[in-house]
């Protein structure tokens, strides 16, 4: 304790003296830049740099001054210092001496110590502090972190060729051959095309020794993670960046304690940030084979599935929980929920999903379905069918979990608290929309026939029909005309014929054949009527004649007279002549009648 007090007192006294200290590494690699730092506890004076070896290329000096004002126990002390930094690159290996530098103030001139420096060949000679001496020629190569650096970082992937969705474990590892005091900043790339999930990694406290290609490294895992490729193709992982704090000895050697032990004890060690990056990587992601099964919901890995239910006997409106558990290794977090077609009458809520991960990509995912029976009866929950893609077997595997039968009992409307999900008079529930099914009955398939209307022949048929009709009409007209001619002739000759018959009857009367007279008179009358009324003789009757005459507006007197004459002719035909009307009178009456009829009918 007393020694310590003395030391402090000594320092206080020495503070007034001008000292020039030099700080340079004991060894450096050829071609590598190192610093030589001169510190002087004064600001005014002339600094004379040492004569560096000609093989050194020197940059600098970089000069900085500082002034400290201190109050110690009421005394004000001003400490000022100047620092000059030379950046030196040594060309050839060997042992060199850096001569003393001088600092000249108004009063005194002080010199620095001479410094020995060992320049080794190659960059790697500046190996970790504990083993650098004596064996400066170690070369790093192979799988080790990129050559030439003493601190490096690497991403180690579980697999470089995977299927989309297949988990890839990754480890970010640090390799170092020098002392590190800490990690300042870690920047992951954005892992384009991947979903990254960090695995809990204990913070890096101590490094493990690992020998790679004969070189000892201190290694440590910085972060473990799982990558799930989301797209297929060659995906590039950009470099990760990290800033490490490298311990670098920059402290000045104390002039009083020039001893290795004190040197390491007192020389100040500064921490210098250094940027470390990883090499970019490429992962080949293969797409999942097509066609994908309908019940594939993105799960890739090797899984098992099981289902359970809280109870198969349920009360109306009381919740039942069905649990489907997916277990195994794979992209659990991306595995979609299984589609279960719950029967109508059971209200289903969206499942509660919990993922229990055990470290890497393995674990279990639990889907909890809350079901509320809204109707009584027996309901069948179909078995769960869930397809996963197994990268090991390189094919889709359909997993099955058992279904359940739920018996729901209870009285509807009993539980007033529950929502009345099914009330009478409810609208029919439509679940989806699809086209109607095809027709599979017997069909008669016939080839299309040419449309008639676009052919000329069809229209010719119309013309033909019209022509035929016209011909028929023409012929019929001709016939009618001819018939009409015959009838007209008879009509016109009717009176003449009748008169000639009556004349004949008169002749017969004169010759004394009285019986024949009546017949002739009857013939004359019937013939006249037939011709005039256009009734064939075969069809003629009295009634027909009368109605025909009435049609022609003949006076009733004439018809009565006709009737009498006709009756008379018939009567006299069959009765003895003496009893009937005299044939002579009959002839006259008939002649008068025909005259009258002619007047009416013409």
């Amino acid at each position, binding site marked *: 304790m007393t020694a310590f007090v003395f030391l402090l007192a000594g320092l206080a006294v020495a503070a007034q003296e001008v000292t020039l200290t030099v700080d340079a590494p004991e060894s450096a690699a050829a071609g590598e830049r190192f610093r030589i730092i001169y510190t002087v506890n004064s600001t005014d004076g002339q600094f004379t740099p040492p004569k560096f070896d000609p093989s050194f290329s020197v940059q600098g000096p970089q000069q900085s001054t500082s002034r400290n004002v201190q109050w110690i126990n009421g005394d004000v002390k001003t400490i000022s210092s100047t620092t000059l930094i030379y950046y030196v690159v040594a060309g050839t290996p060997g042992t060199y001496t850096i001569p003393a530098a001088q600092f000249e103030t108004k009063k005194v001139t002080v010199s620095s110590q001479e410094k020995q420096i060992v320049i080794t060949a190659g960059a790697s000679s500046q190996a970790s502090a504990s083993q650098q001496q004596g064996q400066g020629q170690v070369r790093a190569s192979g799988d080790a972190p990129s050559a030439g650096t003493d601190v490096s970082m690497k991403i180690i992937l579980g697999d470089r060729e995977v299927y989309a969705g297949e988990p890839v474990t990754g480890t970010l590892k640090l390799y170092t051959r020098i002392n590190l005091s800490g990690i300042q900043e870690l920047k992951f790339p954005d892992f384009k095309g991947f979903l990254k999930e960090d695995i809990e990694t204990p913070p890096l406290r101590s490094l493990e020794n690992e020998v790679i290609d004969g070189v000892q490294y201190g290694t440590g895992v910085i972060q473990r993670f799982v990558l799930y490729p989301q797209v297929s193709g060659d995906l590039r992982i950009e470099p990760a960046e990290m800033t490490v704090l490298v311990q670098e000895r920059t402290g000045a050697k104390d002039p009083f304690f020039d001893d290795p032990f004190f040197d390491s004890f007192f020389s100040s060690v500064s921490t210098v940030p250094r940027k470390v990056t990883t090499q970019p990587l490429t992962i080949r992601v293969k797409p999942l084979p097509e066609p994908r099964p309908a019940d594939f919901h993105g799960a890739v890995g090797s899984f098992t599935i099981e289902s359970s239910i809280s109870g198969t006997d349920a009360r109306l409106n009381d919740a039942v929980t069905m649990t489907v558990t997916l277990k195994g290794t794979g992209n659990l977090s991306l595995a979609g929920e299984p589609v279960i077609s719950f029967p109508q009458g059971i209200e289903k809520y969206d499942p509660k999903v919990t993922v229990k991960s055990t470290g890497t990509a393995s674990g279990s995912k639990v889907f909890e379905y809350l079901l509320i029976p809204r109707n009584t009866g027996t309901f069948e929950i179909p078995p769960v069918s869930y397809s996963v893609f197994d990268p090991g077997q390189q094919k889709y595997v359909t997993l099955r979990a058992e279904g359940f039968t739920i018996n729901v009992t209870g009285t509807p409307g009993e539980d007033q608290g529950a929502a009345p999900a099914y009330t009478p008079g409810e609208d029919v529930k439509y679940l989806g*929309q699809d*086209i109607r099914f*095809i027709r599979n009955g017997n069909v008669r398939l016939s080839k299309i026939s040419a*449309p008639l*209307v676009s052919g000329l022949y069809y229209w010719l048929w*119309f013309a033909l*029909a019209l022509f035929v009709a016209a011909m*028929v009409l023409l012929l019929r007209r001709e016939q009618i005309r001819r018939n009409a001619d015959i009838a007209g002739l008879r009509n016109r000759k009717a009176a003449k014929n009748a008169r000639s018959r009556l004349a004949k009857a008169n002749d017969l009367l004169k010759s004394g054949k009285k019986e024949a007279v009546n017949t002739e008179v009857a013939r004359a009358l019937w013939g006249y009527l037939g011709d005039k009324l256009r009734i064939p003789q075969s069809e003629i009757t009295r009634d027909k004649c009368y109605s025909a005459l009435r049609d022609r507006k003949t006076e009733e007197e004439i018809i009565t007279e006709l009737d009498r004459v006709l009756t008379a002719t018939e009567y006299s035909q069959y009765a003895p002549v003496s009893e009937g009307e005299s044939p002579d009178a009959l002839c006259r009456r008939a002649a008068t009648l025909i005259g009258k009829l002619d007047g009416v009918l013409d």
Partner: protein
Amino acid sequence: MRRLLLIHIIMLAGILSLAGQTPEEKYKQAGELYGSGDYSGAAAIYRKLWEEGYRSEGLLYNTGNAFFKSGDNASAILFYERAKLLAPADEDIDYNLQIARSRITDRFETVPQLFFVRWFDFLALLASTNIWAVAALAMFVASLLLALVFLTKSRARGRLLSFWLSLASLILAILMVSLAVRNNSLVNHNPRAVITCGIVTGRSAPGETGNELFVIHSGTTVTVEQELGSFSEVRLPDGNKGWIGSSCMEKI
């Protein structure tokens, strides 16, 4: 060489066995494929039958269904439209067509047809062209016969009846002829077409130089107004007109 021969024989046998099927058997086979979920297979067979010239509303309806199920909505609409021409009153076809239309991209405010045009077209499609044509001819002949009766019969009462009947059947004959012609133009020369390309740009002139007027997507039904080379001027359901490539559509 021997194996090659064997393969040829097997292939020939396969072709023959397929060729040996009656169209009804093929139709049944396609129905079974449809039932088992091979929709594109069923659609291929149905379409082949259609291309061979077989027609039946059931065939066209099933073809539409098979195309719909295999995801080709444009072809489904095309075949439903064709089926509708054979069976205008079929409710299933209307329903499926409406569903297929609801799945396509383009929506239009359709300009509705005049009600009598709609009725007339409906009537025209109730029977096939040739049935109307034959009926019209029969009606015309009946009208002529009645006219002959009218022109030759002398009895007054019968004449009057035959005159009116003849006139009525003549009018019916004219109506039926026009229905036959209308049916023919609807079924065999329908100006409407369904867009089959995914996306088509309508331009103001045929060719690639005209200004772009509109963009339509597959499944839209258009009316072809005129054709010039490999381009057609089409009218959209909302009444707008533009030129598109004829290869991008299939006539109903």
